[in-house]
Every structure is written in structure tokens, then in C-alpha cells.
């Protein structure tokens, strides 16, 4: 099991979810190829988004990367970032999503 260090987890009792933290989870799923990590990390760096943790694995024949990032000082908001990542994903022929970390904490941690 890959455990991601960037996420404390277990804060799902926090009733102010959503606006408290600026951490997001970016997932990349698709056929493996050269330059996926470089492309995504460059895009994040260009927008002043700090990568806290990266985990990657190959599941069946698919490349799966999960990336925890901090948007504290980001130059864009999450909605715009999603559009940028989505565009990059089309270029690389992989699926890239970005979601606020609370979605995962709320679902998987009591």
C-alpha cells in the first residue's frame, strides 16, 4: 500500500471542511509514456503550486500517479487549474483530475 505523506487524514470531523486547507489531490491515469511527471510538475511550478508528495505505480498496464499539492500561494484557483490540467491531459493522452483533499478525507476517514 502506498501511503501518501502529504495528507494527515483523520480530520474529517472538521466541520469547516473545504475552506480550511489548500491541499489538493491530482490524479493521472493512462497509458505510460515519457514525460508525464515532467509535464505535470512543470505546469504546477508555473502556477506556483508546491508539490508535497508524489506516488506512482503501474496498475494493470496503466500508469497511475497520485500527487498531493499545496495551493496556498497558487497563481490560479482550483477551477482554472483543473482546466489547465485537463488540457495537458489531452495533450499527453492521459486523464488528469484535481480535487480538493477533503473529498478523500471525508470519504475514507472517520
Amino acid at each position: 500500500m502506498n501511503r501518501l505523506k502529504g495528507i494527515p487524514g483523520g480530520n474529517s470531523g472538521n466541520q469547516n471542511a473545504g475552506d480550511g486547507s489548500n491541499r489538493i489531490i491530482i490524479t493521472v491515469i493512462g497509458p505510460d509514456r515519457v514525460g508525464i511527471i515532467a509535464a505535470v510538475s512543470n505546469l504546477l511550478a508555473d502556477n506556483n503550486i508546491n508539490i508535497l508528495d508524489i506516488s506512482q505505480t503501474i496498475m494493470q498496464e496503466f500508469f497511475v500517479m497520485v500527487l498531493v499539492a499545496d495551493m496556498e500561494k497558487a497563481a490560479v484557483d482550483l477551477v482554472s487549474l483543473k482546466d489547465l490540467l485537463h488540457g495537458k491531459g489531452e495533450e499527453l493522452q492521459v486523464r488528469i483530475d484535481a480535487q480538493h483533499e477533503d473529498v478523500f478525507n471525508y470519504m475514507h476517514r472517520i
Partner: protein
Amino acid sequence: MLTTEEILETIKMVQEENLDIRTITMGISLRDCADSDPRAACRKIYAKICRQASKLVQTGDEIAREYGLPIVNKRISVTPIALVAEGSSLEDYLEYARALDRAAEAVGVNFIGGFSALVHKGFTGGDRVLIESIPGALSSTERVCASVNVATSRAGINMDAINLCSRVIKETAELTAEADSVGCAKIVVFANVPEDNPFMAGAFHGVGEPDCVINTGVSGPGVVKSAINRAGDVDLGTLSETVKKIAFKITRMGELVGRTAARRLGVPFGIVDLSLAPTPAVGDSVAEIIEEMGLERCGAPGSTAALALLNDAVKKGGAMASSYVGGLSGAFIPVSEDAGMITSVTDGALTLEKLEAMTAVCSVGLDMVAVPGDTPAETIAAIIADEAAIGVFNHKTTAVRIIPAAGKKVGDQVEFGGLLGQAPVMAVNSFKAEKFVQRGGRIPAPIHSLRN
């Protein structure tokens, strides 16, 4: 620490198994809009809805994008209009329905619920005017939904109200005949109605509610079906555990979205309705969950037991996931809105009588059922009375949303489109109930001891 597997599980639920937030519903009290001048009252109603809900759709869309969770509907429920309109001595309340419709259009929601009356023990003048206005209201507006509570476990069953409602349903079917009697899809007749239900068409903003509130309804039959499939060949206790765990996860999403929406809109968070609400999309069906449990078709012998297990496990898992659970909470079994239910009816596996038995253990009742257009009003009243009896005597919410599709016969199809779906016209027992329902009056409330 979260694991990659957990993150991928969430993403799979949304992308492949149709996990979504079915609705964010803003409840708005209109009690401060009552006025003896109906035009003034309608002006106040329009202004208040537009003020409170101006950012509802935008906020819902923003949250959906940030969390990567589809939020299918943004809707509004209001104080039962019978209470608000009663002070204006009008012959009908169509003006009020139109004000609601205009306000809903202005803020961009597709349905607004609350053209409603609570008459479980009897009618006031306003209640009667409202119910009689339903056919006109639903045939002349697009977004307005109506509901009537005709029975409670404390008051018994108001047969006079049921008789009036059945005539109203017939009349609405005739007035909207050219659209397959779609008006009837927007009338719900309840027993033990909850006052904080976020789901249409039965949503209204109850009298014990605050001025404005956000309630959410979750969904996710596809997620439950996949979980059961993955669980494989396990016994029923383990199956129930599987459903509980997945229901917990689904409900957490409703809690997160509801709290976030409430905070951003600056109104209190009400409840999560932890329902499994199907849509006509393949793989988003409650009937398919029942089939995944091991029944050849939904409606086969065993379906009531399977649904009871499902409904209870959804409640057990969901109740722990949210601080405030309410609304209808459980598994919905509408016919036209569920591809698996439609197939079951078409294949002859599911009859109206079996569906009625299943409503004793589902979250609501006979829902989105199309019957022949020539079904007598008295028979519809008797069907409603049966359903109310199941609710009143078992202390649960039940409801009837029945469409006596004008000009249609058994085997014909009715098409409503969108989330309302399509339904095969089902056969109704043709023996008469006229003499029973025409006795009128009230069936007394049940005894609360000697329970057998």
C-alpha cells in the same frame, strides 16, 4: 494517511459508477410573505426567493468542480403555499404558482417544491383552495411541484382528502394529456411526510424549519451495485455489512457538500437525505442492486426481503456518516426513473401489487407508476389509501405518485424525458373499491401497543 487505493476508489465511484450528489435543495420560509393582497404576497414571494437563492446554482456548480463530484440538481423548497396564501381570499392560487415558477426560472433551478397542503386531519379553507388549484397550477407552470399530506400515524388517514386528491390527479392527467400526463409526475400524495425532504416532487419547507436552510440528497445505486458485485459469494450478513460501508462513504459526500454549500451561502445546514435515488441511466438502478443480490428480476419472490436488507443497511451506514440525517432516507423504487424497474415491468416480473408490498420496506412508496388513463378516480383513491395504510400502521413515510396516463392502455409507454424517464403502463386490479372510499371520513390512528 490516505492510500493510493482509497483515492482511486473515490475516483472510480464518480467516473464509472455514477456517484453524484443528487440535489442541493434550499428550503426557504415564505411565512413572512403572507398578505391579504395576493399581488403583494406574490411580489414578496418572488423577491424573497430571488434574494435567498440568487447564488444557489453558482455555488453548487463551484463546489461540484472543486470536489470533482457532480451535483445534478439545485432546487428550492418553500413553505406549503396553503399556509402562505390562506390570508388572501382568492378562488384559486394559480397566481402563487406562477410567482413560484417565475422565481425558480429567475434563479435557474429546474424544480421548486411547496405548492402543498397538510390535511391529514382535515381541511382549512386555504387547504381546499390549494388542492383544487393543483391541476391548473401544474398544467400552466413548468417547475412547480405539488404535494399533499393526507395521513399520519398520529392522526390516521383522511379519506376525504384522498378522494379529493384522486380527482385532482385525474384532472391533471387530462389537462397535460398531450405530454403523456406529465403533470401527475409533479404531484405526490404522502402519509407521514417529512418536513425537510430535499427530493422532488415532494419537497416543501416545513413549519418547524428555520428561515432558510440547505438540505442535500445523495445518490449512488451504481456504487452499491459494484460493491455487492465485488463482495462476491458472501452470506446475507456480510452483504449487509458491504452495503453499510459503501453507504457510509456515499453519505459522507453529501455531508461534505451540504456543509460547504451552507457555509458559502451563509445559511444553516439542515440534513443529508441518505437516499439511493436511481436515474434512467443504465447502471444507476436500485432494481439492478436487488438483482445483483441474486434475484433473476426485481419483482421476483424475495424482492421484498432483498429491498428490506438494502434499505436498512443504507440507513445504518448512512446514519453514522452524517450529523443530521433526515428527509426520506432509504432506497427509492420509482418505476419510470429506474431502467431496471422498467425492464422488470416490461418482462412481467414486477406487478403493481408486488411493488406495493416492496413499498412497506422502501424509503417512500408507489413512485412514478403509470396506469391506464381510464382507471377510475375511486380506484386511484383506494390505491392511495392502501399505500397510506402501509405508512400509517408501520410508522414510516409512504407516498403515491401515480400517472393515470390519458388515452393510454396497459402495455403502452409514456415518455416524460430527462430524469423523469419513461414508463410502461401497468395493469390495475379492475375490481371496484368505490363503496369503500366513498364512505369518506377518517380512518382512526393506529394503536401504539399490542404490536403484532
